[in-house]
């Protein structure tokens, strides 16, 4: 059926001939309706599950954000209009701003540091060398660990007296650098970020490696024949060919930064003194620890809006790009 709307239908195919005979407009509409009915059995179970357990809860957060509710079944939610948002944006909830600020810092750092690192690793490991697969594995393996597990590991590594970081610093005579890595409100967020870099670089590296396979070798050869040198080839051949990969990695990095949750829960729980609070965790804490589903919903709505502002343009770009 798809043949009708597909340009590359073979010239002699009977359906093609049929399509030419009938009036194109009517024919097309009828075909669309038929394909839609045929598609329903394949689409409906999936769409129902997805809609009911994912899409609807996401949108329901917006509804809840207009109510005040403890989350207990015995209590009825009361409508409070925009009050929850007023609290957020007038500074009545200082933790929200701290969380917002931390999420922004996290996004900025994540775009700068792990992206650069993973690109460098991918470029280096794209060469043929001894032990290449072993290297790739070492950098990738942290990515298959659960974030909550990585958090538990790093909590031990950061342990003030027995942890590896402080012991290594003492061992090389930098005693004054030893820290309460997760206990100092000024640096705790960055300590968590280091664990995130350790875990996340491998995945981006694999994406970049995949992107590098797309760099046409003929182009590199041609550039060389024209006398281009290494840096020039990199700038004028490799970088343009990597552009789609850059966009994918960038979007995924930003989205994943907004999703940071497990690592913070596992390493500091948002503390000390809410200094490592992030939006995703604050929404959760407001609902489930502070029994304030309305406030939690408002934070979730802010997070939803930020995510959609990033995701929707990206999706339009991605889906337009692969036009049929």
């Amino acid at each position: 059926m798809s043949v009708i709307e597909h340009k590359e239908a073979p010239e002699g195919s009977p359906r093609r001939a049929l399509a030419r005979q009938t009036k194109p407009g009517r024919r097309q509409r009828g075909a669309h309706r038929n394909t839609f009915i045929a598609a329903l059995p394949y689409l409906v179970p999936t769409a129902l599950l997805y809609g009911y357990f994912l899409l609807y809860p996401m949108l329901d957060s917006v509804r809840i954000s207009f109510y005040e509710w403890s989350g207990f079944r015995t209590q009825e939610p009361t409508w409070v209009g925009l009050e929850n948002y007023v609290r957020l944006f007038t500074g009545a909830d200082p933790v929200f701003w701290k969380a917002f600020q931390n999420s922004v810092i996290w996004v900025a750092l994540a775009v700068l540091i792990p992206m650069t690192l993973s690109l460098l690793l991918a470029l280096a490991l794209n060469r043929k060398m001894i032990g290449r697969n072993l290297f790739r594995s070492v950098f990738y393996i942290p990515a298959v660990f659960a974030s909550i597990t990585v958090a538990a590991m790093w909590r031990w590594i950061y342990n003030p007296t027995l942890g590896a970081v402080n012991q290594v610093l003492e061992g090389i005579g930098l005693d004054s650098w030893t820290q309460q890595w997760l206990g100092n409100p000024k640096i705790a967020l960055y300590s968590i970020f280091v664990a995130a870099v350790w875990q996340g670089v491998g995945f981006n590296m694999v994406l970049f490696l995949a992107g590098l396979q797309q760099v046409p070798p003929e182009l590199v050869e041609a550039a060389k024949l024209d006398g281009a040198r290494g840096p020039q080839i990199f700038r004028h051949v490799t970088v343009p060919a990597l552009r789609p990969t850059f966009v994918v990695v960038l979007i995924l990095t930003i989205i994943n930064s907004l999703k940071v949750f497990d690592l913070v829960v596992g390493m500091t729980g948002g503390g000390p003194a809410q200094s490592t609070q992030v939006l995703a965790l604050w929404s959760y804490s407001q609902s489930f620890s502070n029994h304030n589903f309305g406030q939690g919903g408002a934070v979730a709505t802010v997070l939803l809006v930020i995510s959609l502002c990033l995701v929707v343009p990206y999706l339009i770009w991605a889906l337009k790009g692969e036009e049929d």
Partner: protein
Amino acid sequence: MAATTVTTAHAARTHLGREAGRRKPRDWVGIGLWIALLLSALAWAMPFIFMFLTSVKSKADINALSTWDLPTTFLWANYADAIDTGNLWETGANSLLIALVKVPLGLLLASGAAFALARLRFRHHKVVLGLFVVGSMVPIQVALGPLFNTMLRLDLLDSRAGLILPYLAFGIPYQVFMLYGFFKAIPDELDESARIDGASTFRVFWQICLPLARPALAALFILDFVATWNEYAMATTLLQSQSNWTIPLAVQSFSSQHATDYGSLNAFIIMSAVPVLIVYLMFQRYFVQGAFAGAVKG
């Protein structure tokens, strides 16, 4: 910086190679790069080494020795302790059960939807696809509060079945997106000729499209298994009683309640990751393929 060195070195090597014929020049840049990589890889592996060393140390050893010292005696009993304290068999069985029900079922559902979207291109199918994909990119924490209410209303809170339903929904978007790309790449002539031979839509789906998508399905199976095994946020929201816990909940509880029991804590962490490590080592190439498909399709 390294980027330029890489390409320069590469260019230099092939250039020299052409001029000098058989004689192999020493590739100093390459050697320097290799050493830098070796050092970085060692740094990357360090947390694993520390974790293993701690997992076989007694409490006395942990207090007296440095992190990088070998233990005076290898105390494998930490592992047995960890299995008991962390309830490893029960939580492991829960995680495995959930993953083994969720992953195949989820893939089947996702392939159905992807097939409908890619092969039966009805009007506005791209809008529907977009709606599906949005869900994979919005942080799941946005949905947790209402999801809790939904499960409460359905009386499915604190049950493994109750966790599988949102897990299915959670995995669908990404898989639909991936499989959509894969199904779309199948030439139209293939199912056209099948249809002319009288095959139904279902047979086209089941006997033509699904078998062709086997590599993509394998990659998604692996990725989804790891993601399901590792999922924490929804599990901690929806599960309460310890007998229903999955591995990530057990890890978190172990690390907060027996935090000073460093030896067995690290032993537990290692054991909790064994299944995903096995899966990774056995199916390494699928990880690359999965990421590859993602990078190409966008």
